[in-house]
């Protein structure tokens, strides 16, 4: 059987131990990612949304093996990447890249832009200096940067342009898969749409597959084919973007959608105001993790944890009482 997914997580867990005392005794675990299974199809954009601390960024990093999973598998084109040797893994690094949120924090301020974009080529490809320079020019043009400015430092560029440098670095080795971790969240609105357009254009031209991690739901809706919603280390709902936004099945998804302030005065969703805040992932509630805040929680939700199951054709939700 051919793999339906380019990259897939199977029962993936990432725990961070909490250490206390003189001998750093492990007293508990922060369950940042707790038994998550999902896959990203070739050529699609899978949006991953959730509030801070829900584990979405950790999940993205574990998918790239930038953080080692506590348990579970990540399969890239059918191979479990955690079982690969360092040589094989190095080969795989060319195929999977990441774009970070803060372009200033992820670009070395002492590097010239041409060295920043050329660095992956120097490390992974046997290319001469002039070949690298040609490729840097080509990449800068591809992401909409003025290639004559390649002998400058990142601080001489604006926020949006720096994010373009980060994107050029990420696509330099022609990867198949890119994790975009809050790639447009730090940008001003008028610049954000430019970078979103660029990401969509590159996807078409280069056949990229994205895992698009963000907390801004309107942005995720615009760019994603399918969306996964995370809450406290779990994926609570997966659906095609249109279905998810038209009719959320999980109460948390419904709350999240209703909470976004819309830039218009008419035709708003009715707002559901949640009580309380996201509990600590070190000590998640019993049963369904959302039950203390859920407006529809019943007794069963307190004791039994719902699994992520097919709740409607092509849609998964982890809820005992999905909203139909």
């Amino acid at each position, binding site marked *: 059987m051919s793999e339906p997914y380019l990259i897939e997580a199977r029962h993936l867990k990432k725990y961070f131990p909490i250490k206390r005392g003189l001998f750093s005794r492990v007293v508990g675990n922060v369950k940042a990612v707790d038994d998550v299974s999902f896959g990203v199809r070739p050529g699609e954009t899978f949006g991953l949304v959730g509030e801070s601390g829900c584990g979405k960024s950790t999940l993205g990093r574990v998918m790239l093996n930038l953080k080692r999973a506590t348990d579970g598998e990540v399969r890239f084109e059918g191979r479990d990447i955690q079982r690969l040797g360092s040589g094989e893994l190095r080969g795989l690094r060319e195929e999977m890249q990441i774009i970070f949120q803060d372009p200033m924090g992820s670009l070395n301020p002492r590097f010239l832009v041409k060295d920043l974009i050329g660095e992956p080529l120097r490390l992974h490809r046997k290319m001469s200096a002039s070949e690298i320079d040609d490729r840097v020019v080509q990449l800068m043009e591809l992401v909409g940067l003025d290639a004559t400015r390649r002998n400058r430092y990142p601080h001489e560029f604006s926020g949006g342009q720096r994010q373009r440098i980060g994107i050029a670095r990420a696509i330099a080795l022609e990867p198949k898969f890119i994790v975009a971790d809050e790639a447009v969240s730090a940008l001003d609105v008028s610049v954000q749409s430019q970078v979103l357009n660029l990401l969509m254009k590159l996807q078409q031209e280069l056949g990229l597959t994205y895992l698009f991690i963000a907390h801004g739901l309107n942005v995720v809706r615009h*760019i994603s084919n399918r969306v996964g919603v995370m809450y406290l280390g779990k994926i609570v709902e997966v659906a095609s973007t249109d279905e998810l936004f038209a009719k959320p099945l999980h109460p948390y998804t419904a709350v*999240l959608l209703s909470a976004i302030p*819309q830039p218009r*005065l008419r035709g708003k969703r009715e707002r559901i105001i949640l009580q309380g805040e*996201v509990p600590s992932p070190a000590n998640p509630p019993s049963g369904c993790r959302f039950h203390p805040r859920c407006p529809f929680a019943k007794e069963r939700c307190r004791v039994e944890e719902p699994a992520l199951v097919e709740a409607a054709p092509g849609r998964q939700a982890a809820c005992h009482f999905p909203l139909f």
Partner: protein
Amino acid sequence: MAPKLLEIKDLTVGFLTDKGFVKAADRVSLSLEKGQTLCVVGESGSGKSVTSLAVMRLIDYAGGVIAEGEIKFHGDELTNKPQDEMMRIRGNRISMVFQDPMSALNPVFTVGDQIAETLRIHKQMNAREAWNKAVDMLRLVGIPDPEVRAGQYPHELSGGMCQRVVIAMALACDPELIIADEPTTALDVTVQAQILELLQKLKRELKTSILLITHDMGVAAEMADRIAVMYAGAIVEEGTAEEIFERPRHPYTLGLLQSIPGLTGERGTTLYTIRGGIPGIGDLPAGCRFNPRCPHAKERCFREEPPLLPTPDGHRSACWLESGPEVKTS
């Protein structure tokens, strides 16, 4: 006619740099009536925070200079008041809510003490009265178990709770005006929804006027009676929330509204973009400051800077365009 609660006229605020005097806010005029919420919307570098700091005269401590203009609070001029008089106004009659609640609170005092301090200073309450009022304030802003919470330190509270504490502190002396500078930007959407709801409730019940600074058009739509859109140091459009959202006239306002992907409608299409980037305040173009990015710029726009002109429906837009840009509202 009674003077307005807050009236800012031709306010120019800037910083002395090695390149000379750089204007961060350029002839800004705004007014706010009692019980109203005025949102100042803009992207980074638009001058919205500088304007709010100038009203509080905190700009003096940030190295800024008020070069020109008036700030009248109940008709009383604030720009030339000595700081010791401003201290009697700040936190008492005008108070401020900042973006990051964790850095607005002092980590070594309990939250109750911090609220009580404001009351002891401005209302001459004794320690016990002030503490009791602090607990009442925490209850008012929806903090559960206020008696217990008052004795806790900021690190023991979540971000959303801390922002409620900051709001409680801002409200403690029953101010006439609250300046909230990106009060929900650091918070998650579900917590943001709670805080916006709280601000609206307080506005309804206490009739406090709010000057809300935000970059989020969604938050503005939620909260504002009136909106002023700022770009690169100047107000480019000003009107009621309805006028700004339904009949925007300035190409920047329109571009901003069109470049936000919606929660309904088409997806995956090429988004509308405003070309180029935000200019630095030190190197503004001649003429209209938006001209390098404007799709409608004409010869006059490169020559002459447009003042805020009345539009057909009576709001104001700083644009030479006669007919207004093509308006597509979804």
